[in-house]
Structures are given as structure tokens and as C-alpha cells.
């Protein structure tokens, strides 16, 4: 407003650019597109999707397929982060769910019941985390650290219940959910879409989403507006536990074995990363489910491109670290200010 008029003509383009840049959806989508385009140049046929043996095949499908477990976990994480919390225990939840499945299959339960028990185990974990955060009022990082530390041990213990030396199993139902396909489409994509849809309905077609965001955004104001922060926070950890349980079902059925030590290792970090790339702030206050999925796809696309480019998969970690840093620096006011000063200085 009070800028000198001489400069107002030039920034009009800048302003439009800035308005576009202000759209939060632009950056993650841009990043995803960029990665895919680079991949397209590096490996010809990257975008080809063929039908082999009655299924869709191709790198794009592969990215979607592999991103699903992280995406499922990230959806729950997005809800928890929206309430200004965090759930570090999701990897452990996956381990517990996997061990539970192997155990119940060994006991000979009907496989549909086993699925319910597995999801119940995830809910139970959410119940525990929610109890610590919402009732005992322990900081989320600290509270969920407890299950993170001990969860894989609990998984190993469950394996021990039935001997546990060779906890691999066969389950047509569960394996179909994970590696099967419905028509042309891999089942887990449908499962992922269903979880996304159900969660979206739960938080956007009821007032739960609004309440979750209000508790994360300003808990004092939420209290005065008559919202029970405890119950709302509790529900977030239950949702996260359930989402992690679904990921546990998919991952466990994929390897048809219970391996509590290494299943879903570092998945909590990927999930948090997906939320952050999707524009969610760790300070809470907003839940972006759709963008969280985009975030998970960005991570998987990065991983896939590193694989296709012939680098060892472990380079993935460094790339991820650099991506986190860049995203966080862009989110930081101080860093943006410093960048602007550098560029502003050059312009003059």
C-alpha cells in the first residue's frame, strides 16, 4: 500500500507469482511433477503402463503400490499432527499388528476375525498413547516414545507365545488385501483409497475435523468454545493407531511373516515427512489428507528414482534428509527472510 508508486508496476507479475506460490497445494505437486519428469528423461518408458497377466504394470503404478503403507500411516499422522501432537510409535504398532496376525493364524482363527483382531491391536495401541497424551497430559513426543521403544519387543513376545521360531503363514484373505488385485488394479490401492475415503468422511462430513484442528490451533479458545480437548486428542491417537494397523496388515501380508525387528523400520519418520511435505505444520491447526498422500508419493517417487537411476537404495536417506531440510527452511520465517535479503541485495 505505502510502497512508492514507481515500483508498483514491476511487482504485478511477482505478485501473481506470489499468489500462486501462496497456494499451499502448488509446491508438493510441483515437486512430484519435477521428480517424475526427471525420471521420464532418465529412464525411457517410465510413464508406460502395460497390462500383464491381467494387471497394471509400470513405474507409476509401482510408485503408488509401494507408497501405500507409508501413505496409510501418514494419514493417521496428519490427524495427530493437526492436533499439535506426534505419534512416534506407528512402526511399533505395525510390528505388534504383524505379530498378532501370525499368532492368531497359528491358533487357527478364521481369517476375517484375524483381520478384526489385528485392527483391534492397533486401536489398543492408540488407546494407550491417547491415555498418556490426553489423560496423563504427557508431551506427545515423550508419550509415544514409550511404545516406540517397547513395541517391537512386544511383537517379539507375541511371536514367543506360540514358539515363534518360524512365524511365516499363509492367508489368502490378507494376502489378497496386500498383494492381490481386483480386476486390473492392485487391491492395496483400493484399500488405500477406501481408508482415505473413510477418514475423509469421518473428519470432513462430521465436525470432528474442525474440532481436531481447533484443538491443535488454539487449545484455550477451543476450551472456551466448548470443545473437550481431551476427547478430541484421544480420538486422534485412536485414528493413528488404526491407520498404522492397516499398514501393518498390508506389510505383514506382503512378506507373509512376522518380523517385529525390521518391519516398518523408520516408517514413522517417512510418515511425518509426508505430512510436512504435504504442507502440514508441526505446530498443528490444519489437517490436509489429500496433500499428505501427495507427500507420501513424493517420498516414494524419490526412492524409486534413486533405484531406477542405478544408485544404491541407501542414497535415498541422504536425498530425503536434503528434502526435509529444504522444505523446513522454506517454512521458516527467518530463513525466508535471509533468502529474500540475499536476493533483494542482488537486485539492487
Amino acid at each position: 500500500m505505502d510502497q512508492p508508486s514507481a515500483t508498483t508496476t514491476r511487482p504485478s507479475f511477482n505478485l501473481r507469482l506470489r499468489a500462486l506460490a501462496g497456494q499451499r497445494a502448488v509446491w508438493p505437486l510441483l515437486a512430484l511433477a519435477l521428480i517424475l519428469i526427471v525420471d521420464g528423461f532418465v529412464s525411457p518408458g517410465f510413464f508406460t503402463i502395460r497390462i500383464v497377466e491381467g494387471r497394471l504394470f509400470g513405474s507409476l503404478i509401482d510408485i503408488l503400490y509401494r507408497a501405500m503403507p507409508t501413505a496409510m500411516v501418514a494419514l493417521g499422522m496428519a490427524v495427530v499432527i493437526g492436533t499439535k501432537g506426534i505419534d512416534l510409535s506407528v512402526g511399533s504398532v505395525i510390528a505388534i499388528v504383524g505379530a498378532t496376525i501370525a499368532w492368531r493364524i497359528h491358533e487357527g482363527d478364521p481369517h476375517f476375525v484375524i483381520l478384526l483382531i489385528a485392527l483391534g491391536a492397533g486401536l489398543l495401541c492408540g488407546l494407550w498413547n491417547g491415555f498418556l497424551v490426553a489423560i496423563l497430559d504427557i508431551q506427545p513426543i515423550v508419550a509415544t516414545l514409550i511404545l516406540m521403544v517397547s513395541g517391537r519387543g512386544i511383537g517379539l513376545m507375541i511371536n514367543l507365545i506360540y514358539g515363534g521360531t518360524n512365524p511365516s503363514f499363509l492367508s489368502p484373505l490378507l494376502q489378497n488385501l496386500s498383494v492381490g488385485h481386483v480386476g486390473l488394479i492392485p487391491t492395496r490401492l483400493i484399500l488405500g483409497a477406501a481408508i482415505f475415503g473413510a477418514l475423509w468422511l469421518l473428519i470432513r462430513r462430521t465436525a470432528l475435523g474442525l474440532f481436531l484442528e481447533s484443538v491443535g490451533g488454539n487449545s484455550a479458545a477451543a476450551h472456551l468454545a466448548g470443545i473437550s480437548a481431551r476427547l478430541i486428542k484421544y480420538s486422534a491417537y485412536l485414528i493413528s493407531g488404526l491407520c498404522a494397523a492397516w499398514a501393518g496388515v498390508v506389510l505383514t501380508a506382503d512378506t507373509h511373516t512376522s518380523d517385529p525387528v525390521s518391519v516398518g523400520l523408520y516408517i514413522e519418520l517417512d510418515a511425518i515427512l509426508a505430512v510436512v511435505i504435504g504442507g502440514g505444520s508441526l505446530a498443528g491447526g490444519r489437517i490436509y489428507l489429500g496433500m499428505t498422500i501427495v507427500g507420501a508419493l513424493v517420498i516414494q517417487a524419490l526412492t524409486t528414482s534413486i533405484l531406477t537411476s542405478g544408485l544404491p537404495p541407501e542414497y535415498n536417506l541422504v536425498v530425503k534428509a536434503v528434502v526435509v531440510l529444504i522444505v523446513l527452511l522454506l517454512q521458516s520465517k527467518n530463513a525466508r527472510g535471509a533468502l529474500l535479503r540475499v536476493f533483494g541485495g542482488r537486485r539492487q
Partner: protein
Amino acid sequence: MRERYLPFLATIAVFVALFVTGGFLYKHFFSTLVIGHILVDNAFIIVAAIGTTFVILSGGIDLSIGSMIGFVGVVMANLDAAGWHPLASAALMLGFGVLFGAFQGFIIDFCEIQPFIITLAGLFMLRGACFMINLDSVPIRHPFVSAFAEANIPLPGGGFLASSAIVMLVALAAAIVIAHFTRFGTNVYAIGGDRTSAALMGVPMRRTIVSIYALGGFYSALGGVIYALYTSSGYPLAGTGNELNAIASVVLGGTLLTGGVGMVAGTLFGGMILGLIATLINFNGSLNGAWIMISGGVLLFLFIVLQRSLVGSFKLRRAA
């Protein structure tokens, strides 16, 4: 009894109780040999945890510890192959640890980003760097390594204090001096206790926070050096998950995870408790690693709840 010593006393009580339990259950458990072994086996974790104690005391967290341990080992192994003396490469890596920590601290303070997420990026970066250098275990063959491993001080009762344990104790002594007898140390406690007040009372915030993470980096690099010499190799997966052990050691040592309260000496006992649990479970033979994780989690829970009630008493007084 002063309430701030309560968590520390609880730590010692747990340690003694575990040790006595072991003594009743197993023959030969009550010996300096067992103590000596626990110290040697856990020296690297405890050293890294000592650095983490400062970070946690200031209200922060450092997740890059495990990767730092792995990275230091891999670089030292490769420098060994290139003909470096282990001491020279160790000095280099300690310097690297300081710089890396300082870098993390700077980003945390400058960008006002949660330490959790920045050190997570640090975790990825260092672990990735390990794999970029090596995918397999590389031995360190310099004669100094075996000399270091064999050097020890005999203890009465057949036990001995190995050189890595000695380095750990010296590092601990230095940390105690830094924490309790320098202005910097008190500033760490002040920042962890109440950040805003600390700034108003004239604590130099950026300098202190950068120094805290630099110190954390130094100690985790030292942990890496000890681990590399102890295993006489560099393995890119070494130290995976050790950040959790280090954090658990700190909390079991009576330091408040929210910062401001705790004692560096407690971390030694916290680490020893974890070591003792592992030893007890090994002595049993029929139990496995699951027990270590679960008992660690249970202890963590108990300590966090104990701390929660202590913090509650502070807060109540303040709000009244």
C-alpha cells in the same frame, strides 16, 4: 529430602535392586567382573548419552546419535585403510562431530524448528553417508586398536576396567564439570527450565544452543570412536536405533525429558541399568531381546510418570 534428587535416587535404587536381584538369581553375578563387563559393553552408548543429557536438559532432543556412531566408524575404518593412525582419524571425527552438532544447533535456533525434526534429518543424512562410503563392514587393522582393546586396569575381585570404560569415565568427569561448574552449564539448565526467562536474564541464546548441540555432536562422535575401537571395524549399520537407547539412558538417569532438571552423573546409571537388564537376560538364557525392549519401555514409562508428577508440583506453585 530435596525433590530434585528424587529421580536420581530412584535411578540408583533401581540399579541396586536389579544388581541385587541378579546376585540372588545367579552365581558369580556379584562380581567386579560383571560390573566391568557392563561398563565396557555400554561405554559407547553411555558416552553418547552424556552428550544427549545436555541436549535434553536444554529442552531439546538429538536423534542423530546412532547414525553418528555408525558414520564415525565407517570413516575411521576407511582412513585406517588409507594408512591413518586411529588417533588421528579419531581427532578428525571428533572435530566433525562438533561441527555437525553446531550446524544442527544453528538451524534449530535460527529457523526456530523443532530439534526433533532437524536431528531427524541429521539421522538420515549421516546414515545415508555411511552407505555412500561402504556397504559392508570394514576392519580397522592398525596395531593401536588391539593395544587399546587390551589395555585395562585390574579391579579387586578379578574384574578389570577396560580402556573404553576409562575413556567413558573421563568423559563423564569432564561433562560433570561442564554441567555443574561452568556458566555454560547453568545456562543449559536455565534454557531448559524456562526459555523466555533465560533470555530475559541475559543468557546468550544462540551461542548456548549451538554449543549444546556441538557438545552433543562431540560426545556422540566420541561414542562412535569408542565403538569403532571396541569392535575394531566400521560397519554402516552400526549404532542403528542407539539414539533411543541413549535417550532412554538419559531419562532413566533421572533427567526430565522436558528439560531443566537432571544430573549428568545419572546418565551413567541410566545406561548401566539398561546394560544390567541386558546382562540379566543373557544370564537367564531362556529370555531374549524382546525382554530388553519391553523392560526398557516399562522403566521409561515409570520414570516419565514419576517426572510428570514432579513437574506438576512445580507448575501448580507457579500458577497459583
